[in-house]
């Protein structure tokens, strides 16, 4: 039996849980969300990624019901949710500041939403205990939020938002208040919890690493518009614009004039240099293009490699030693600086190159992507 891959967005028969249809939100003269349409499916872990002010938080607040769209409709499970106030929506939110109730214990914080639903006490008790177990804070049920650590508060906030078993859970920068080590551990726990509960998660973040790690799909936003909605690997390896390529990870961008050559494209980018061969992101006509290549796909060597089309020579300008990786900034004769990254897989190897060294950079025909300019 073939393994079923979770890709409802590729299944035309799948019904989206959330549909934004031409949604626009204006605050005075400022357009926070600009005629945006998007489908989010059940059980997805969907990340809205973008710089601050790109409209991602506004989208989340519209889903929660704290803002209403200026125009367009938002459908949840086939129902227009615009007229429904936040307290009547089967949507819960985990706030960036956690927004725990300081006067209530951890237990009562988690029970808060259930009590509003007037559930019988034994049912509430069972559910709260289940939640405490899920996020592994059973020991701290009777403490106040100020009596637990930041990481535990984050768990309480998550448990409180999940307690009512919402159709959709919104997470606003869920891990931004944690330090790096804890953040990485918590990312995996978050994915684990999402899988266990089967809840649809929509996470808002400006941290691309976080989005890439946790999400099934990432939407990159800028100025109220969607730039690209895709799986993390597609966003990274096949960005559709220089904005997305530049926003996610590190990238070298070389501008030039492209000419189609079968499946590839030859880009003339500097006087007297052979053209760069790259793979276009989509079929495109000859014209001005940007060539984007990730630093880890650029090889650096002392001798000129014989077997590659894309070879350039330059001088080492800077070296950034990161422990696991080293990034070389190599300046080409035309003045362009290209970053090349190598893995430091051996501990005692001395650095092969140093400042001012003449080196060769090379990459394969498929390593870089050609983007329209």
């Amino acid at each position, binding site marked *: 039996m073939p393994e079923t891959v979770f890709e409802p967005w590729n299944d035309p028969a799948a019904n989206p849980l959330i549909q934004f249809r031409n949604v626009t939100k204006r605050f005075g003269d400022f357009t926070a969300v600009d005629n945006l349409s998007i489908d989010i499916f059940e059980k997805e872990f969907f990340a809205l990624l973008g710089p601050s002010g790109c409209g991602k938080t506004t989208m989340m607040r519209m889903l929660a*019901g704290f803002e209403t769209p200026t125009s367009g409709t938002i459908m949840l499970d086939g129902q227009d949710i615009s007229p429904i106030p*936040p307290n009547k929506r089967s949507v819960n*939110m985990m706030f960036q500041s956690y927004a*725990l109730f300081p*006067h209530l214990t951890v237990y009562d914080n988690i029970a808060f939403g259930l009590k*509003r639903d007037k559930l019988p006490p034994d049912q509430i008790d069972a559910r709260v205990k289940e939640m405490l177990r899920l996020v592994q804070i059973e020991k701290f049920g009777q*403490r106040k939020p*100020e009596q637990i650590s930041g990481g535990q508060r984050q768990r309480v906030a998550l448990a409180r938002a999940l307690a009512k078993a919402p159709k959709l859970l919104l997470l606003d920068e869920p891990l931004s208040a944690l330090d790096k080590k804890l953040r990485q551990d918590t990312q995996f726990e978050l994915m684990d919890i999402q899988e266990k509960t089967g809840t649809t998660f929509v996470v808002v973040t400006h941290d691309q690493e976080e989005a890439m790690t946790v999400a099934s799909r990432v939407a990159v936003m800028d100025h109220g518009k969607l730039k690209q909605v895709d799986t993390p690997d597609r966003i990274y390896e096949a960005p559709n614009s220089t904005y997305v390529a530049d926003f996610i990870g590190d990238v070298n961008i070389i501008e030039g004039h492209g000419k189609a050559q079968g499946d590839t494209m030859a880009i003339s980018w500097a006087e007297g240099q052979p053209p760069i061969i790259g793979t276009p992101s989509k079929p495109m006509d000859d014209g001005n293009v940007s060539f984007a290549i990730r630093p880890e796909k650029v090889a650096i060597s002392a001798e000129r490699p014989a077997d590659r089309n894309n070879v350039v020579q330059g001088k080492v300008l800077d070296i950034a030693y990161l422990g696991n990786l080293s990034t070389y900034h190599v300046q080409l004769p035309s003045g362009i600086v290209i970053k090349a990254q190598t893995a430091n897989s051996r501990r005692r190897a001395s650095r092969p190159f140093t400042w001012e060294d003449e080196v060769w950079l090379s990459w394969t025909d498929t390593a870089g992507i050609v983007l329209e300019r």
Partner: protein
Amino acid sequence: MRRLTWFNATSLTLGFAFLYIPMIVVIIYSFNESRLVTVWGGFSTKWYGELLQNEAFLDAAWVTFKVGFFSSIIATILGTMGAYVLVRGGRFYGRTLFSGMIYAPLVMPEVITGLSLLLLFISIGLDRGLFTIILAHATFSMCYVSVVVSSRLVSFDRSVEEAALDLGCTPFEAFRLVTLPIIAPAVISGWLLALTLSLDDLVIASFVAGPSATTLPIKVFSSIRLGVSPEINALSTILIGLVTIGTIMASLSTKRAVMRRERAERMAEQAG
């Protein structure tokens, strides 16, 4: 412990002497046997006894208490409601004007407040007495409550209220179950402030008080005009005592709150 330098010691002595010598004089003379205020006639507590026999003073104290109690409660409710609307009501038309206007009575000379209230009460034909004093005190002290409560509302995270809505509260439930418990310390200090202001007030009360009701400050002030009596000294000493007890209790509870917070922080660290 560090020893004070002679300069600091002098400043301390001078400052506190300036503050407390008048009160100490009152306390000492309240135990004076002699009826003459300036002549020491030996130790006695008889003026306290006489004070307790003095119906006029006791009535005035009772009126003051009633006025303080009711006016501070009205002021707390109205002041909190006002603060909530001004801070949380969004950017409704005229908000800036209202926010400014709530501070105006704080800087208004009391004589003017008293006079305008008096004119209002006369023009609507309200008989002056206990009720008008309560109204007048609630009017001027609610601004103080409002200022105290709104500074607390401004500093607390709005998303806590949104979380309450998100978890199924109606806006009123969110206020009752989340906002109010969180701002309670500010509401209580606003209430205490309103109570103190009411107990303390002479000027406004003397405009709006009628023959049927006199507050203690009015009574004290009018009897002083006939000459200082040892009874007044005894009364002052009792008031000083009450204020001292109140202050000590307030500072103890502040200290307890600090200790509780420190304990919470320690627990949080250990829980880490």
